[in-house]
């Protein structure tokens, strides 16, 4: 029999603030709905208990700055959500389940390669931590993450931007009209992973029909082409027509059909804050679709009244977008004036990241070693102004070639030399699954 795993972790004792959208109440009505339907009595549904991810499991994927310890007071709920994703992902890889749904709070897809705090309600990136765990511990090679949250999955994109073995696809409401303001078609991946990031910004008002059209005509062919070992769906629920923040017009049934089309190995809850009008019904529809049950009788009480774009409008828009996307070619800057770099071409990508929860800016300078053999070693300098001091992430990628591996070690060694402006460094050696944290005062620590 096919089994659908469910890990339901509503974190009923945790919130980001009393009236914050990410609060205790968020999955309360989902629980009511799922329990009342008797969904856990379906013979193919298998419920799992949550577990806490270790700090090591988080650091393998994300650099917590300025030090991991600084985050520990606010990390418990996030570590449980990440651990829960890992637990269900392992169950999938071990074939205990055919597919699964990590229905946990808090969400994670806005949390990127470097973390100074909470942004877009996310501190740890649950899917990314899962993806790298499965690669490091269970030998999985190629994974696709399809993000169907209404917001651009900028954190996930950031983490896998240089990784040719992870295909990241994000469908979202156009960044010109919604947080976080990114996710345009020209963001197609780093120099060694070109075209492994696909952003599909959709116009406000795209409904079920338009969304399904994009999936069938763009997303699914791309997935088929990539032929991943696993598909993970970042299943945000804020495309629903009752969502208070976004303006897409999807229904619970529409979500059921998305799930049916994508056939993800694992769906992981992301955002979605219409906690009464949408979540109970969308979660039910997704779970039923995963379990191979009919979701067409799931009806949200409210009626769709906002105007929806007809397919005759969405179709040409998407076709035009596809043309634009095809035309975009790599255009990277090679840095020339930094003396610390080992030999090779180091592509330089500066950018800044805004942390909306606490309201501050992170300035990043990313350097990637161009490589035709592997994903290339990544060196990231990160600063949180006004402090001029930097924290540094060195990442030796999975399947790194010997030159990139050596480059990583050289940079790591450089970093630990006495200097005024470096506070901390993290070495993610994904190749050997080693993790080191170096702190100016506390010295080197192995995780």
């Amino acid at each position, binding site marked *: 029999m096919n089994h659908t795993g469910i890990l339901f972790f509503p974190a009923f004792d*945790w919130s980001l603030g*009393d009236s914050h959208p990410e609060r205790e109440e968020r999955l309360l009505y989902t629980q009511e709905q799922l329990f009342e339907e008797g969904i856990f009595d379906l013979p193919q549904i298998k419920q799992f208990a*949550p577990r806490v991810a270790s700090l090591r499991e988080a650091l393998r994927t994300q650099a917590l700055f300025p030090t991991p310890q600084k985050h520990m007071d606010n990390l418990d709920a996030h570590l449980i959500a990440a651990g829960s994703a890992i637990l269900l992902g392992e169950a999938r890889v071990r074939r205990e389940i055919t597919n699964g749904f990590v229905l946990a709070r808090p969400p994670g897809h806005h949390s990127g390669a470097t973390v100074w705090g909470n942004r877009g309600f996310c501190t740890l990136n649950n899917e990314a931590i899962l993806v790298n765990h499965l690669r490091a511990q269970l030998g999985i090679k190629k994974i696709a993450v399809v993000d169907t949250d209404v917001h651009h999955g900028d954190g996930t994109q950031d983490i896998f931007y240089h990784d040719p073995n992870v295909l990241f696809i994000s469908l979202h409401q156009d960044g010109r009209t919604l947080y976080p303001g990114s996710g345009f078609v020209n963001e197609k991946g780093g120099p060694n992973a070109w075209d492994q990031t696909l952003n599909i910004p959709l116009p406000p008002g795209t409904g079920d029909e338009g969304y399904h059209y994009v999936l069938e005509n763009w997303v699914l062919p791309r997935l088929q082409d990539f032929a991943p070992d696993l598909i993970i769906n970042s299943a945000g629920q804020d495309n629903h027509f009752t969502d208070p923040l976004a303006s897409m017009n999807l229904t619970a049934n529409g979500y059921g059909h998305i799930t049916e089309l994508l056939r993800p190995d694992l769906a992981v809850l992301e955002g979605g804050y219409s906690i009464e009008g949408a979540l109970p019904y969308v979660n*039910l529809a997704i779970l039923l679709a995963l379990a191979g049950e009919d979701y067409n*009788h799931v009806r949200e009480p409210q009626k769709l009244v906002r105007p929806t774009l007809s397919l005759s409008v969405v179709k040409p828009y998407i076709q035009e977008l596809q043309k634009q996307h095809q035309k975009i070619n790599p255009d990277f800057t090679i840095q020339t004036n930094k003396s610390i770099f080992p030999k090779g071409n180091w592509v330089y990508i500066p950018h800044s990241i805004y942390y909306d929860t606490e309201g501050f800016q992170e300035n990043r300078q990313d350097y990637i070693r161009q490589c035709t053999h592997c994903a290339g070693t990544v060196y990231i300098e990160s600063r949180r102004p006004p402090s001029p001091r930097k924290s540094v992430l060195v990442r030796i990628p999975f399947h790194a070639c010997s030159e990139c591996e050596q480059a990583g070690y050289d940079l790591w060694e450089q970093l630990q030399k006495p200097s005024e402006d470096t506070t901390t460094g993290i070495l993610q050696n994904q190749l050997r699954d080693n993790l080191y944290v170096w702190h100016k005062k506390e010295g080197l620590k192995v995780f």
Partner: protein
Amino acid sequence: MPKRVGIDVGGTYTDAVFINNNQIEHTAKVPTRSENLVETLLDAFDALKVPNEQEIQQITVSTTLVTNAILQNRISDVDLFLFSANGMRLDALPWPVRYREFSGVIDFRGREIQSPDQSEWEKLVSLDGGGNFSHVAIVGKFSHRNSLHEEGLAAYLKNRNPSLKIALGHEWGQANFYRRSLTTYLNLGVSDLYHQFVQQLQTAVTARKIKAPIYILKADGGILPLAKLRPIDSIYSGPAASVLAALAQNEPVASSIIVDIGGTTTDLGLSLSGVPLLSSKGAQIGPFSTLVRSLAVRSIPVGGDSVIRPKDQGFVLESYRLGPAHCLGGKEATPTDAMRYLGLIDYGDTLLAEEAMASLLPQARRDPQSLRQLATEIINTLVDRIAEGVESLKREWQEEPAYKVWEVLHPHETREFYKLVSGGCARGITTALEKRLSNPVHLGVFPEVSNALGTAMARPTFDCTLHLDTYMKHYHIEETGEQGKWQGSLRPYKEVEEFLNALAQQQAANYGIEIHDLEKDPFDFFPIVKNYSTVGQIVRGAVHMRPGVIGRVHV
């Protein structure tokens, strides 16, 4: 310390004990006459030969009446009417009974989304042609949040047929429409039979001038006065009794694994710091999934009389029984024969036991060494099955879902378990079980009447779970299904605690039981936010009196 009688009605035998001052003073065993339960109970009571019957303060009965009626399909005809609303298709789950669907939708907050269609009701009545229905169970999705539609249809039907027996789903106030429907259906289906039993028993007892109140043991190990019980709650009281018997012979705070080995099956139970583990899901009886709270128990289909068949290499331990063991006059070789052959038990014929062992080996290999080896392997196989059951029960406990950060960060600690074995041939497996679990195993002191002992020592359980929605100004109690208006503040704190306590006292008085040392779940407060301001709260809280025993029996 009161004088108590406990009677356990089993499939073959009915056992009874009389306990005075924590001592077992008399025990009795009589054959069960399944056709006349009341007579059987009185037989057992008489066989106890209690010196002064007037001094007995309580009689507790564990009965298979309801269990058997359900499993043998001897229940009243019930028509099941559902307000099934939207959502998962009904036939996604197996319905062992037929139902009729009506329109009308209530949501998770108890709001009416769509009102019922009266014309459907009229059609139903005209179809019925004036009274084919005798028993009707009416259940609506989310009726535990709002019973409006159930009450409406009930009033409509009652108006047309005042003699109709109607049960409403919201009285089973827990979530799960599927289980609530089947539980309402079953409880109504067995209520005639149960009430008949209550009446007969009360008449008989009054005629005998026995004044002691009679209590019935429930699936969760608690007891309730005969007349207050919801009949369906009395299923599976046998396994509950064996867990309670273990508690009555144990250190009060010990965690224990309870193994009750019978002829056909072995029952397993678990207690944590003296409190038996409750199953996270309601009980399953035959094809019915219910909301009945029951202890987490495992029944393994092997026991002392399980048949052993020879195989090319070795043997197979079957999961059925064909009469007694060979050494006790039966035809088949069984684990009991192996125990007798090895001298682990002191009843049964030694020569017949040897014969049984020999029958499993080819002629050429029937030497004492091979026979001993075979007998040992048989016991080890039995013990392996039991150990697997123990592991699965422990997993159920360890893998219980957690919905709060606090729960995940404070997991159940692995503890040392006290292992207690009882039942007919318990003595025969203790050594092997000790070896398999690499821990000492203790033998129950009164294995032959342990269920009656557990029944006698049982005490009431009590649960009162409040769900309060201050914005909707509505509350409900899970256990009784009571729904009412909330007149307190939008964000109550102390107030809600007092409210719950008052409700609990009222409920206990209604059951006719005394509650004390209530265990309180911490309240969960869910602020309800609209447009970034808090407009009310959903509050969940509960008090419990966990299953347990009134004391320890002295040996």
